[in-house]
């Protein structure tokens, strides 16, 4: 009898221990929204529904609701690099920014940030009226690319709205207080989609604090960094947020395409289930339809804290 009781007790203890070892997947309470652009060739694919997507959160398929983005109000942050030799193109930039303000819809809001050595908000987030105080755009000497882009990424996305960031820069960073590591981490935490318009060819997008890139130079404030691995930080951030780098493009034309494609994209909403309640969540979005599609979606999100 005593031995039987001991065996039962041991069995119960073993069960308890086993139960404690099972990973605890508390649901992530926050509803997650993921902006997804689907392209066929270079054209957005319209008319997709929830049934056309699969979304895996850390490898676990999720129940999703797909909504077309065209009906959703968008907060647009336009970030303009006015450093260095841009002084000669300043009037062009002012015209371009004015033109872009007219592209944004009345239901949207627009914010304009300019950076050189300093980062300045030329126009705080406000309902689009088609005008921007472009006279406040002025050029400076050095270039705080990371800080300028972070000034847009580090803004919360209001419920019921989406946040699109379009940055016009060659990416030649030499003055930011934020490091390349920090800008990548900020990209992971941000809910915005970042698109980059680079006036020059891709090699101009260099990390000046990473000596392995040709032509990179390090200004005093940037400080030496460990040898670089992988793509430059800006490209990483763009990819993490689900955006694209548009190379060799002029500002207005590229913005129009980015904005049109964005409005033709989708939001996938899901309540994470079966996954850890905190930490980095890797996302994988696929199209179930037959055909050749390119999907741009953020690579993941941070849950909890």
């Amino acid at each position, binding site marked *: 009898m005593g031995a039987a009781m001991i065996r039962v007790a041991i069995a119960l203890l073993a069960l308890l221990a086993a139960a404690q070892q099972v990973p605890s997947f508390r649901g992530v309470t926050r509803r997650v929204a993921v902006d997804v652009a689907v392209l066929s060739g270079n054209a957005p694919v319209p008319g997709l529904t929830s049934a056309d997507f699969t979304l895996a959160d850390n490898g676990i398929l999720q129940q999703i609701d797909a909504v077309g983005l065209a009906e959703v109000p968008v907060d647009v942050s336009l970030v303009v690099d006015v450093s260095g030799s841009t*002084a000669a193109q300043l009037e062009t930039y002012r015209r371009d920014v004015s033109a872009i303000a007219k592209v944004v819809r009345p239901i949207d809001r627009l914010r304009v940030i300019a950076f050189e050595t300093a980062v300045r908000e030329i126009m705080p987030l406000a309902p689009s009226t088609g005008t921007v105080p472009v006279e406040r755009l002025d*050029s400076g000497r050095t270039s705080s690319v990371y800080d300028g882009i972070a000034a847009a990424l580090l803004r919360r996305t209001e419920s019921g709205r989406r946040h699109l960031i379009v940055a016009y820069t060659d990416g030649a960073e030499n003055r930011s207080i934020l490091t390349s590591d920090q800008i990548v981490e900020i990209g992971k935490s941000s809910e915005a989609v970042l698109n980059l318009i680079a006036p020059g060819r891709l090699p101009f997008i260099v990390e000046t604090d990473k000596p392995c890139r040709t032509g990179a130079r390090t200004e005093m*404030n940037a400080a030496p960094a460990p040898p670089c691995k992988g793509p430059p930080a800006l490209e990483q951030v763009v990819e993490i947020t689900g955006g694209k780098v548009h190379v060799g493009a002029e500002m207005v034309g590229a913005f129009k395409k980015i904005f049109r494609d964005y409005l033709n994209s989708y939001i996938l909403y899901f309540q994470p289930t079966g996954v850890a309640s905190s930490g980095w969540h890797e996302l994988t979005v696929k199209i179930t339809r037959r055909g050749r599609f390119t999907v741009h979606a953020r690579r993941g999100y941070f849950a909890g804290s």
Partner: protein
Amino acid sequence: MVRRFRVVLLLAATVFVLPSSSRQKSLHAAATVSLVDALEAYGDGRTLRIEFKTIEDLRYALNRSGRAWAESGPVDDRRRRRNVVALFALDAVLNSPPQGSTVALLEWACDYLRAGEPSEFERTWMLASIAYAQSQRREDFLLDEACGSGQSGSPCLHVRHARSRFPDDRRFAVGNVFGRTEVNVLTRRPVLSPTQLVRARTWLSPHPPAAPSSFDTERIADTLGRLQELTTDPVVGSIAQLRIGILHYELRRQSDSRRVLTGLLEGTSDRYLRNFAHLIMGLGFASEGRQVDAEREFAAAVVADSGVVSTAMELAALYFSSGRRDQGSVLLDRALAAAPHDDPWQYPCPDCGGWTRRLEDLHAWVRR
């Protein structure tokens, strides 16, 4: 943007200088303006764009047309006009890519200013030009010992010129310490050896020297000693203390840096210095991976001055990475909505505190 080797000067007062109403007036500048038109515009608080291929071309034009314009004015307006010419040269330097000839232009303007009686305009102009040279780590322009027995008029005599004009001003008297390169280094990742600090000039090499030389180690020790002697000075003592803290930070002596900066914070209520000291302590903690301590210091920096974008950015980044997006967003909203502040990250030189105000004063003084 893409850096070009052709030098194009677009002369406009820096955005930190003029109130927005003044900047708005510059919008409709004529496409081609003469140097005299551009100089005249300063009197109305306006800036006009004018292009020169090189700094030397501008110096030549100022020496010929600028001087002639100043000296041909009404007798009671000549002094203001001379000041306009000197300020024009300073604005040009501030808006040009760093290059050797910028200091030659400054020294030309310095000579021109010194032809008259010393004035508050000249004192402020000297402070601003020296702060610029410090930020560019141009010790060849600032230190007596770099001159040797240089001839009068040599650019390396700039601080000496300022001292001769304002012999009682402590800010010029300390020029031989505050002008040293190692006193003007501030990096995001403090991995610098004495050699990197002493040899750093405008650009840091991505391939730093492997081992510090004994000469450079002794030089750093000497600089720390000289700064220490200045810490009791009623005018520059706090700045000397701050620079000691920054030097320790760069040399990865974070405990020493914190000890010095804590002492500074106990004795000053100056918001620029407080913001700067907390920023350095925060960066020091961050370099050691102590994020909680770093956050506390960045938060204290923001309390000292919520309008400094760089410190708000650091704190907002920490908030964001720990899921506190709303807090981070509000911080940035507030910092970016504030009027331009002296940002110690962007203007880290010893005499850069008060930079914005100095440039505003200079522009106000030359208005009619």
